[in-house]
């Protein structure tokens, strides 16, 4: 891809991302801000000692007595100035909460995507290379796709943590290092298994299609081994649709991460966002939502660029 075309594409996609994030922030601010039950209403309902005077004082203190549009503009100004504000729920600066949570979720998502992709590709390749195995792979994929993520998680906990006692049932390691890996295994396996089915089915279709192409026949005629034909000739041609799947998968996995982080009591972006929305922590919820949106869009852009790099037919498309 020519550098100028690449820059054009990048700039146009980045502008799109910024506009999308701005629109997302406005809509999310309105939706969360208009949700019934502001923090003071919740506090009043829970504490009989709060008087009418206390309610008015606390509303003013939290800036809840101003119109929602004014609140949005003030919030947007602060964010543009790099000030992400304070989390009401955790009584800490939002930035202090976000980065550890984002890092934890990215490790979880990254590992899960890699594992799902590797296992899914292997299963897809098996189905494509050996048509008699296709039925088994399809059945396995349907079975996995039908299993809810939380169910897979709880099964793994019961087997590996409760019954065998090999791995922790949840939480996060205090020690770090190899111990952290032990805490990561079950959540990653849960999320990877949940994502495996889509990878296996798409890989099987894409590889089967590539294996039927004339250049594969030509490679075989030149004496290339079965493995070489599959991995060196068919896979690069099957890669673009799989990359598109990877980009789409990031969005789906973020949803899965919420469930996984809840079942495994593992701090991360999904859990943080859920806690923030349920706890009326507008500031934290918005920043977390925008960050998740930005990560998803960045993953989509990366996949798009990789697709164009791999597929010459896409290079001239804007």
């Amino acid at each position: 891809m020519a550098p100028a075309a690449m820059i054009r594409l990048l700039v146009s996609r980045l502008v799109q991302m910024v506009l999308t994030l701005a629109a997302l922030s406005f809509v999310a601010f309105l939706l969360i801000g208009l949700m019934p039950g502001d923090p003071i209403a919740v506090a009043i309902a829970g504490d009989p000692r709060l008087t009418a005077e206390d309610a008015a004082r606390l509303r003013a203190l939290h800036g809840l007595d101003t119109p929602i549009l004014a609140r949005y503009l003030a919030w947007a100004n602060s964010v543009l100035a790099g000030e992400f504000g304070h989390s009401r729920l955790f009584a800490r600066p939002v930035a202090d909460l976000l980065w550890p949570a984002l890092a934890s979720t990215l490790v979880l998502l990254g590992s899960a995507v890699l594992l799902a992709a590797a296992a899914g590709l292997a299963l897809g390749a098996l189905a494509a290379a050996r048509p008699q195995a296709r039925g088994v792979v399809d059945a396995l994929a349907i079975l996995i796709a039908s299993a809810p993520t939380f169910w897979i998680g709880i099964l793994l906990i019961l087997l590996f943590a409760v019954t065998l006692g090999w791995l922790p049932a949840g939480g996060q390691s205090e020690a770090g290092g190899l111990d952290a890996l032990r805490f990561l295994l079950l959540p990653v396996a849960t999320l990877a298994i949940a994502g495996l089915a889509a990878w296996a089915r798409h890989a099987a279709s894409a590889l089967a299609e590539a294996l039927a192409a004339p250049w594969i026949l030509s490679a075989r005629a030149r004496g290339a081994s079965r493995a070489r034909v599959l991995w060196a000739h068919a896979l690069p041609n099957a890669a673009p649709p799989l990359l598109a799947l990877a980009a789409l998968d990031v969005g789906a996995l973020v949803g899965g991460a919420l469930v996984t982080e809840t079942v495994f009591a593992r701090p991360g972006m999904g859990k943080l966002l859920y806690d923030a929305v349920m706890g009326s922590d507008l500031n934290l919820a918005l920043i977390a939502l925008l960050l998740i949106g930005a990560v998803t869009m960045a993953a989509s852009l990366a996949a798009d660029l990789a697709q164009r790099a791999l597929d010459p037919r896409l290079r001239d498309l804007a």
Partner: protein
Amino acid sequence: MPGLAALLRPLLAALLLAPAVPAAAQPRDSLTIGITQYPATFHPNIESMAAKSYILGFVRRPLTLYGQDWHLACGICETLPTLENGLAVLETTPDGRPGIRVTWRIREGLRWGDGTPVTAEDLRFAWEAGRAFETGFGPAEFYRRAYEFLSAHPREVTLRFDRVTFEYASAGDFQPLPAHLERSIWEADRRAYRSRTRYETDTTNPGLWNGPWRIAAVQPGAGVTLEPNPHWTGPAPAFRRIRVLTVENTPALEAQLLAGQIDMIAGELGLPLEQALALQRRAGNRFQFHFQPGLIYEHIDLNLENPILADRRVRQALILSADRAQIVARLFDNRQPVAHSNVNPLDGVHDPEVRQWPFDPARARALLEEAGWRPGPDGIRRNAAGERLALDFMTTAGNRSREQVQQILAAGWRQVGIEVRIRNEPPRVFFSETLSRRRYGGMAMFAWISSPESVPRSTLHSEEIPTAERNWSGQNYTGFRHPRMDELLERLPETLQRADRLPLWRELQAIYAEELPAIPLWFRADAHIWPLWLEGVRPTGHLNPSSLWAEEWRPRR
């Protein structure tokens, strides 16, 4: 995540038939506790929530507290002030009203975790910050009433109040704050103090804590680690390290307990009773189970502005056709006492002679007939105008236990000709909008938590009915108006001698049981789950958690 929890619970129960391996042997000088909530703040005077109270129980001691016997006692004070011992003195306020002067003396040798003594200056700072309403402490009533602070000795504080109540000796949320660390931050910017306090920015600073332990590490949203406070002069704690982990999802919490990752689940913030009972059936030999009835009063508020419910006979018919004893037996294994009024049987002011409504559908039908409700062709009663006897019934969506109770009650009421329409809402909407703005049309099931001998003014006085003019404060959601009840609620706090209050309490309970602004259901029990090797934990059942006496917890020898 209540929906997910509801899905996971039966799955976990079904699959746990597999034999569990015993938890790996734990070192007995550390303890890991699971709870279901993470505190929004560690500042003792900002916001009140159960998770904060539980954790701060290990690391701070209040001036006064309610003991395990439900009586007020000293925390860090030497002697509880009384009129008899002279530490409380009735007086007149400068503007001529009856007032009281109360003196507490701080126990000798009490120090913050950095070695600085706890003194009257720490209480003076707490009082000044509380009186400056821009600081943003929650309920400000205590500070409004305490109009003057005096200190004649570094360990002695006297507050002058402009109102005399029988609770004068209780310091409530008035707790010492380490002035040597916090005052300068507060003075620099009072409005920003909430977010700049060291309790949020430097939570592991030992100087913030004066209890047997101090907070040594914090994982936001996940838990805290506690280590002994070297300057604690009380009984030496047995545990070198305590971890309090937050696992909001109760099936996940149960799995971590069974996997040996946590040693115990605190009843104050633990498993729902029915989940704990199921766990006891499966793993009763691996843990100690203790069910502590407490002050959480489960009931159904009745909207008395609804013309159907305005008729007392209908309210009485509702309670007569609700088989509460059977529900408690079947769903809760008789672990929760049926409530006959809003006062807990464990509370010293409870009247055992209060009217107890039995399950009597025949009498309920008779009362409804008397009230003009006759059975229609579909079994639902109608009045002379042809209106159906139909009521909305709301509770918190996703609370499996409440939803089960709701179904059973609705079936019972249908038997006597009352149609019930179930309309549940997420807790946030239910509590902060529907209830507090009195937008529920008929019945609303939820719970109140209070302290021992808590005068229910906010829930029963006619001046406490939430309105827009009152900023929706007040908790008289039923709209109950009863002049004699108002009078009792005003007289009770001002009656200083307990013996004189008892007849007032009896009358209050009698009116409540007869008028039924709400249908009493039961008092909830907390399910405490401890390891077999632990002893000394004594749950209270009220707002002061068991952690306030955690230095008494010991590994069994």
